[in-house]
């Protein structure tokens, strides 16, 4: 079992280890790692003053909530003075002059960044294979086929692999349709996607604005609460940031839930799934039933439309969000005879296949004559999906689903986009509804690979969601 944030803080307070030693230990792992989980590992010199300041606070007995904790940051968060690429060629030389809201909160709370985690290009992918910097390798191996390199999931694949391989204590990811929860599940760690509107999107390279949400990937649920306490704040600069009163997610994390809990399991999610996946749900059900939690079957009416809705809306927004990458003001510019050629060459050479595909899909569904049939229709269906969740969350407190329909697969195995998109079948509906979801490790597959289950809560109910997940985690912990 890896050390949790609270354990590490204890060691730092008791001076069993210094901030510098802790940093060096993780940084060395990040540098020597064979999994390609970082696009960039930050030089020690750039962190030295943070390390010293942090150590001083420990020495003075007033450490900050995340003081000295080494974090990995998905290469989608703009970090001031540190190259930020979105794992794309077109931004491969981009150094922002500003710090994203979320990473600024983490810095304010004393954490230290190890580096920028590899991810799918512009967060578009479910296997981290679309990255301009090459695929990330899952630290886990199939026990029946040890030589195969497996995907870590995506798009926050580098963030998940880095935590799983121990090159950072926790990492930041973003989730648009499952990009935190799915890789967390495939790498055997915890991944939380907060309610849309919880954590500011300011300074995060945008993929699909109405879906993107930052969240932590951690070794345990308590660590997720640590990070959420730091990043979950209202931000005036993000118009979609909610200004509701935030809670302390840590304080009651290990306390039992106050009221009697009812959890719904969507029966339609479990049709045609493997025994491996069914086992995860059964185990979780058994473990939590012991605590007096009631399980009921629920049925969604909209599940079959979720993926197609997502793959209209997300590319539509992406096609517009990525228009600014034209090679004119920043990023990589390819020369051309005319202005149009510069655009064409910069974007053709700057974007990879999956990004290009989604821009084309997005431009298509928004174009005159198709808008009503695709985009407008998809917006209506999204509303129905939201209503569907609301209906079910009126009957039950939480929803339990598998996080993924399968274990980690081999790099290069899923070649056609549709079968790749299907990897997000359990996470996409939650994203469309804007609800919070957390994936926790629930067991191993027959091949000895980690699998996870997802708990979905109501809007802004992260506190009880984390309490429930912490309870389940205690019962389900598995040994590597």
């Amino acid at each position: 079992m890896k050390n949790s944030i609270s354990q590490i803080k204890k060691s730092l307070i008791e001076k069993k280890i210094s901030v510098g030693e802790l940093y060096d230990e993780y940084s060395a792992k990040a540098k020597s790692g064979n999994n390609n989980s970082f696009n960039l590992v930050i030089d020690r010199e750039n962190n030295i003053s943070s390390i010293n300041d942090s150590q001083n606070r420990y020495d003075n007995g007033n450490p900050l909530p995340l003081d000295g904790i080494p974090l990995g940051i998905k290469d989608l968060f703009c970090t001031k003075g540190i190259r930020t690429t979105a794992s794309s060629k077109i931004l491969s030389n981009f150094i922002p002059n500003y710090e994203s809201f979320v990473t600024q909160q983490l810095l304010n709370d004393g954490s230290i960044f190890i580096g920028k985690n590899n991810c799918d290009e512009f967060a578009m992918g479910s296997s981290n294979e679309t990255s301009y910097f090459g695929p990330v390798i899952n630290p886990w191996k199939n026990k029946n086929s040890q030589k195969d390199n497996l995907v870590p999931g995506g798009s926050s694949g580098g963030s998940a692999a880095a935590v799983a391989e121990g090159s950072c204590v926790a990492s930041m990811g973003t989730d648009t349709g499952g990009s935190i929860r799915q890789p967390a599940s495939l790498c055997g760690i915890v991944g939380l996607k907060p309610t849309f509107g919880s954590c500011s999107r300011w300074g995060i390279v945008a993929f699909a604005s109405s879906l993107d949400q930052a969240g932590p990937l951690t070794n345990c649920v308590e660590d997720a609460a640590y990070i959420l306490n730091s990043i979950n704040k209202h931000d005036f600069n993000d118009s979609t940031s909610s200004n509701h009163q935030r809670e302390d997610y840590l304080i009651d994390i290990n306390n039992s839930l106050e009221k009697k809990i009812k959890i719904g399991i969507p029966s339609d999610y479990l049709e045609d799934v493997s025994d491996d996946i069914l086992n995860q749900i059964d185990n979780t059900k058994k473990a939590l039933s012991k605590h007096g939690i009631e399980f009921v079957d629920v049925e969604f009416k909209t599940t079959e439309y979720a993926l197609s809705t997502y793959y209209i809306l997300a590319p539509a927004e992406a096609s517009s969000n990525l228009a600014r990458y034209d090679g004119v003001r920043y990023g990589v510019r390819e020369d051309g005879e005319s202005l149009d050629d510069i655009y064409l060459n910069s974007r053709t050479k700057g974007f990879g296949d999956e990004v290009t595909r989604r821009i084309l899909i997005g431009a298509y569904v928004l174009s005159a004559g198709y808008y009503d049939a695709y985009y407008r229709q998809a917006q209506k269906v999204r509303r129905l999906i939201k209503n569907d969740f609301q209906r079910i969350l009126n009957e039950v407190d939480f929803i339990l689903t598998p996080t993924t329909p399968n274990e980690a697969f081999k790099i290069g195995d899923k070649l056609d986009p549709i079968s790749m998109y299907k990897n997000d079948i359990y996470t996409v509906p939650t994203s469309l509804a804007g609800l919070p979801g957390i994936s926790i490790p629930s067991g191993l597959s027959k091949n000895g690979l980690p699998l996870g289950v997802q708990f979905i809560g109501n809007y802004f109910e992260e506190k009880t969601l984390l309490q429930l997940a912490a309870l389940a985690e205690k019962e389900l912990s598995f040994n590597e």
Partner: protein
Amino acid sequence: MSNNWEMVIGLEVHAQLKTSSKLFSSSPNKFGSEPNENVNFIDSGMPGMLPVMNFGCIEMAIKTGYALNFKINKHSVFERKNYFYPDLPQGYQISQFEFPILSEGYINIESGDNQKKIRIERAHLEQDAGKSIHDIDPKYSFIDLNRVGTPLLEIVSYPDLSSADEVINYMSSLRQLLMYIDVCDGNMQEGSLRADVNLSVRKKGQELGTRCEIKNLNSFKFIKQAIEYEFQRQINIIDDGGEIKQNTMLFDTSTGETRAMRSKEFSHDYRYFPDPDLLPVNLTQEQIDKIKPLVGELPQDKLNKYLDNYSLDKDIAKIIIAEKQNANLFEKMISESTVKPKFIAAWLVGDIFAFIKENNLEVNSLNDKTKDITDLLRLISDDVISNKAGKEILPKVLNGEGKPSELVKELGLEQVSDSEELEKIIDEALVGEEENILKFQGGSDRVLGYFVGKCLKATKGKGNPKLINKILLERLKK
């Protein structure tokens, strides 16, 4: 022959709003800065930057709604208009499309001797783009992003206009209203107010023809020229058996001609969709009502007041209301003195405006001199000094060279209004004028003028003409 033809015109007017910051960013919204000085990370389209709506723009739109008789929509939506251009850093312009903030308004304009109601379909908020500059360097184009994100209100009329003069009247009425309610500085030269003209032609009484749109006209002169040229161009095409193709035109200010843009320059599918970075604008009735008192008196209200309460001549009243600062100056003078408004108005549009024009001043610059001006006007209207003396003193007063009463003394311009003294002068003047006196008594009024002039000359211009007149009449009738 063009007499059988008529033009049908609709106008899209872009008004830059006078907010201190931009529509979706905190950069200053001002003209004339160094290139790229008023640009922040949002304006320059940096990764991860998000727009935040400036509510001041909504308030100005609401004010405009009241002034132009619009329905003010409680629900409006910002959408993205997607196209690539170097002066559009985000790759899209944020604009309102399906749900504009204002719909179905109108204003009344003058058309010949009549009033004509011009209906306005909608007005919506949107971002202005930056500027591409192609004429500095032979090889490179330059981009100035200062204007990026400047708030625009696009006001779209119905095709209710049917002559260049009507268009000018409509545009100047709009300009006047927007300046009155203080949402736009109306400076067309700086691009604060620009128009796209949609024009088609038809034989009188026939169906609407195909329209062409002339883009981006920023002076009344160019609007008039462009309309006249385009009108004739379309007629010529049809007369030659051709057909008008719907097209976007540019007006060449050097030749006075319109020409079609290359199809590439406008054949966009803008792929509008609601901007997911922004929430829809949902206003309460209370928020809308709160703005109403800020609209203030509109030109038409003032005109009525000036005619009914102050008995001004219509022409003079119109000159005063043409610009809000004129009206403000006028009303300030009225409130500060008991001189008759009509008298003040005559001096204002006469010598005072002439002085402003000659010296290239802002009307506002006289706001702190109104007391001195009205003091001077009081001296004139009370016959303490002559009209002529008033004209002489006015520039000195406006230049701040002294108080009117002091200047009168200093220059010795006080009128002689002492009856005895005047009687003496008049009696002297009538000596040896028996022949003329007889002429007057015989009915020739002209002789009176001659005598007044002679007497005034005798007083070196300082005699009170009214009094001289009165005494003369008494003497002559004897």
